[in-house]
Structure formats: C-alpha cells, structure tokens
C-alpha cells in the first residue's frame, strides 16, 4: 500500500479512535445537564443544573435520594493520602536498593511488579479470608489500606527506578568526600534532586488509590469509600446525578493534574539554570 494514502487514512482512523475514547464521556457530560424530569438518556428536556444542585443536597427532597458521597469522599481522600505516603516511601527505598546489584534481584523485581498485575478481586478475596481467619475486623484504614499499597507501591517503584537510572552518582560521592554522612547525603543531595520523580510517584499513587475499587470491595468493612458508594448505586436505576458526579470528579482529577503540573513547573523553573548543570555533566 502506498504511504501517501496510508498516512491520511490512519490520521482519520486515529481521529475516529479518539471519538471512540471520548464519545461516552461527552455524552455523559451533556446528559448531566438534563432537567429534573428528564431521564438518563436523550432527548434533553431542558438544560439545567438541577442534578448538580441535587448532588449537593440543594434541591427540595425528591423521590431520588442524594448520592451518598459526603463521608465516603473524605474517607477516600484520607485513604489515598495514606497510600501515597507509604507507597512512595516503599517505592523509593526499593528503587534505591536496586541501585546495588544483588543476588535475587530478579525474583524480587517480579514480586513487587506482581502487586500491580494480580487482579484486585483476587487479593481482595484473599485479604477478606485472611482477616476472617485471623479475626481482624475489615476496615478501609486497615485491610483495604494495605491492599491499596500493594497496588500502588509497584507503580511508585517503577517511577523511582526510572529516575535513579538517570541519576548521576558522582554528586553523592562528592558529598561524601566532603565528610557528609550517607544519611545526610541522601537528605541534602539525593532527595532534592530526585524530588520531581517522587512527586510523579505520589501523583500516580494518589490517583490509583483514590479510584481503586475492586481491591476495596471485599476489604472495606462497613464504612465505604467513594468508588464503592458509586458502585452501590449501579444496581438500582441510574439517574443523571451520577453523570453530574462524574463530571465533577473528572474536574477534580484535572485540578490535581494541574496542581502537579504547576508544582513541577515551578520546581524546574526555579532550578532550571542549576539543573542544566546536572544534565550537561551527565
């Protein structure tokens, strides 16, 4: 086939693919502005923000109950925060360990990576059985939390591994030759330089944990996280308030992404001149 035909053909195909990716979300966003009387489908009876107000309990009580997102949102945020801290620390420690060659690094690598591979429903089931067996109560801050870390720690580990691969070891040696202990060297030299990577690892961990659902299902106990509250409403009839919620939660994610971008940019901008030195030397 001639590339002169293939190129535009593939361009059109890619555009169609993007439409396939975004189509449902666009439809969902449109339908979130359905009026009170309209259902979760076309046509739009009348454009309104009714379902957004419904979400925040700002409408008069209707027969459709408010989405139970209040407490679960707080729980999910706290859980995501805990997960982020622990998995970033673990990921950084492990990646640091992988800078030394040691026997058995292969199996350990796969053991860690397995955490992101193994289906959530499986470890979730296992954890539920284990806690039953050991007589431990299931809770979002306990049994669910440890599974979230199992899931996000491999991602943090891979991000940090990539960062350390590009890291110039001689700055650490320089620090030690100045009489600075390894611990202080890590704190004053290594950490500041790898910080952008740590930020990425944190972003990864946070979003994965915040949206985690299959691992949480069996291990959360009585107090639900946000995705589980949402999932609970699927079994009954859905209303456009879910769509409104979807739009808001997407906006929230983007805010997070923008904050990350701004942090990264500020960090690299203020250090831009200084960092070019590291790249030049490397």
């Amino acid at each position: 086939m001639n590339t002169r035909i293939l190129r535009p053909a593939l361009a059109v195909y890619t555009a169609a693919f993007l439409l396939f990716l975004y189509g449902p979300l666009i439809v969902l966003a449109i339908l979130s502005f359905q009026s009170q009387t309209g259902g979760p489908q076309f046509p739009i009876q009348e454009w309104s923000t009714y379902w957004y107000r419904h979400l925040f309990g700002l409408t008069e009580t209707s027969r459709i109950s408010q989405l139970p997102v209040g407490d679960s949102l707080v729980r999910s945020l706290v859980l995501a925060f805990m997960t982020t801290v622990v998995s970033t620390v673990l990921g950084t420690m492990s990646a640091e360990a992988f800078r030394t060659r040691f026997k058995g690094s292969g199996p350990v690598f796969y053991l860690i990576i397995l955490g992101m591979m193994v289906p959530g429903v499986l470890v979730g089931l296992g954890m539920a059985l284990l806690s039953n067996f050991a007589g431990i109560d299931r809770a979002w801050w306990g049994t669910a939390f440890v599974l979230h870390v199992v899931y996000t720690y491999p991602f943090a580990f891979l991000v940090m591994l990539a960062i350390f691969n590009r890291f110039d070891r001689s700055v650490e040696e320089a620090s030690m030759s100045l009489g600075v202990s390894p611990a202080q060297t890590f704190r004053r030299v290594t950490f500041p330089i790898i910080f952008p990577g740590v930020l990425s690892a944190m972003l990864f961990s946070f979003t994965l944990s915040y949206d985690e659902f299959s691992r949480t299902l069996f291990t959360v106990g009585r107090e639900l996280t946000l995705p589980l509250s949402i999932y609970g409403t699927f079994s009954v009839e859905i209303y456009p308030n879910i769509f409104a919620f979807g739009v808001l939660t997407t906006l929230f994610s983007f805010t997070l992404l923008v904050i990350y971008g701004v942090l990264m940019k500020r960090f690299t901008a203020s250090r831009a001149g200084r960092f070019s030195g590291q790249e030049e030397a490397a």
Partner: protein
Amino acid sequence: MLKLSGVTRRYGDAVALDGLDFIVPDDTYVSLLGASGSGKTTLLRLIAGFEEPDAGELMLGGERLDGKPPHRRDIGFVFQNFALFPHLSVEENVAFGLRHRESKAVPAGSDLNDRVNAALDLVGLTGFGHRGVGEISGGQKQRVALARTLVTEPRIVLLDEPLGALDANLRARMCDELRAIRERLKVSFLHVTGSETEALTMGDTVAVLANGRIAQAQDSTSLFTQPANTAAARHLNAWNLIGGRVKGRTLDTAVGALPISQSLPDGSEAQLAVRFDQIGVCEPDQVPAGQDHFTARYLAGEFNGPTELSFFRADNGDLIQVVNHLSNPRLPDLTEGRTYALHFSPDAALLFEGAA
C-alpha cells in the same frame, strides 16, 4: 604522607590494580599518568573510599584508610564532570561540606560565610556566590568544585582528570592556578591524567601507571630524560623503542645491529630507546662519524606549530618518530617514500632489559 602497599583491585577476571606500591609525600603536587583503562580512576576511587581494594593496605599519616567509609577519610575529590550539586547555588555548594559534615560541622553564620568567601576568593570567583551552578561556565564550575573541596581542608586532594572537560586555552591557565593554589595551602594534590604534557607540567613528582602498577615515580625532568623501563618510556610519548636480541656488545634488531653500552647476557631480549628529539636524519651515505644509525622510509610530517613531527617506517614495520624544533631545525628537506639514515649519539640511547 599517603602510602599504598600491595594494592590490588579486580573486577571479575579483569585486574585493574595488581599489587601496586605508591607514595604521595606531604606538600607535593603528584601527577599520575596512565592510559585510559589503566586503572588510574580506580586508584583514586580506592583512596577516596568509593571502592575498596581486594588486597593491600592504604595508609594516610600513619592511619589505616581501607575499611573506612569515604566520609570519614578526610580526603578531597575533584571530579572530571565537576559533580556540582545542581540544586544549590555556588556558595551553597562551597558551604555544603562545612555545614553538613559529620564531624566539626560549621553552623550557618558569619564564620561559615567568611570561610566560603575566602575559598571563592582563592579560586578567583569573588562575587559569584549567588549564581546557580547552571549559570556559570565550565571553567568556573571547575573552580567551584575545587573551592568546595578545599574549603573543608582535606588531608590530600585527589583530582580525576580535572582539566579533561575544559578547552585548551582554559586548561593552560588552570594548570598554573592549580599549582599556585596548592602551594598556598601546602596540601598534597594527586592529579590523575592521560596527557603526558599535563602530567609533566603539573607534577613535582610524576608517576606512570601501567599494567596495574606504578612503572616509575620521579620528578618530571628525570622521568622525561631517564625513563626507568619501557612502560614509562612508552607513556611519555617521546621515545622510540627498538626491540632486539643481545649479541655480544650489539643488539640484533630488525633494523640491523646496533651497538650497546652495557653488557647483557647473549640471546636475552632488550629494548633500545631513543628520544624523538635526539635522532638526526641524513642521506644513507652521509652518516656523521661516531653516530649509531639505521635506515627507514619517510612517511609523512605533522606540523604542530613550534615543532614538527616526522614519521618513518622501519624495515620491520615499526613506526619511528623524529621531532624537529622549528627555531633550531636539524632535519634536511625530506621526500615522502624515500629512505634515509636515522642517526643518534650512542650516549642518547637507553637500554631496557626484557621484551617489548
């Protein structure tokens, strides 16, 4: 005094250092000359403690070094790539060691600032303290790296090809400054380089590292005029080596029999060494009386400014080099492809026992 005895370092089957003995006296500029891959960086890393030897002993001022972690050795290290802290300003880089070192740390304050400024003055970077390290030139980075090391007053300073990343102009200037700075501080510098001119210029003592050992360590002049062995002679890049077998008072070489001054056992292998600048060139039938000589074919000349290097091919394929100083020319006009007699005074030739 830094004293290394029997130091060995292996990487798998490859031997980088093989029972090396070496002394760096106090208050001396020592340059260490070695080809790339000769283990010279390994030697520095062993002294600094970034790596440990497989065998041997390292002593500094009567105290055992090996086995100590690098941050407790009190040895300065200047890296080829400078290894400045990219996230810190120039003065923060220089202050880093004093502020954060394990023992005798200096808290932030006027004392610290004074010492940092003094170090910056020393390397000629007065007023550059607030710059980021990405905002300064290569030569200035080198100075920051030096100031950062010197301000902590190490017992000895190791410099790993410190001029390698600088351009030629800057390199010459830094050479002078490095020597001047060292003389003011009275601390020993051990400067590793692959360039024989740099080694000879810089070192009070020049050591040649070859085959995992120190082939020779002596002052520049003695080393240059009287290399002790073929390894040293070869590294100076100024000596032609002609190998052969001893037969009475002559050396039977591929370019013919050449007289030797020492008596060596018949049949033993030996190398005759003649410096590039001590060979004269003439027509084969016009060799001056009292000169030893052999013939070789002229290949090409290389013009280097004040000197000109001429390349000859001996009958056995050996490359022979002859230097001509343009201010004092000794050579006739040469025609490429023609055969000439290369002659030298018997006193100028050195004889080394053993094979090449």
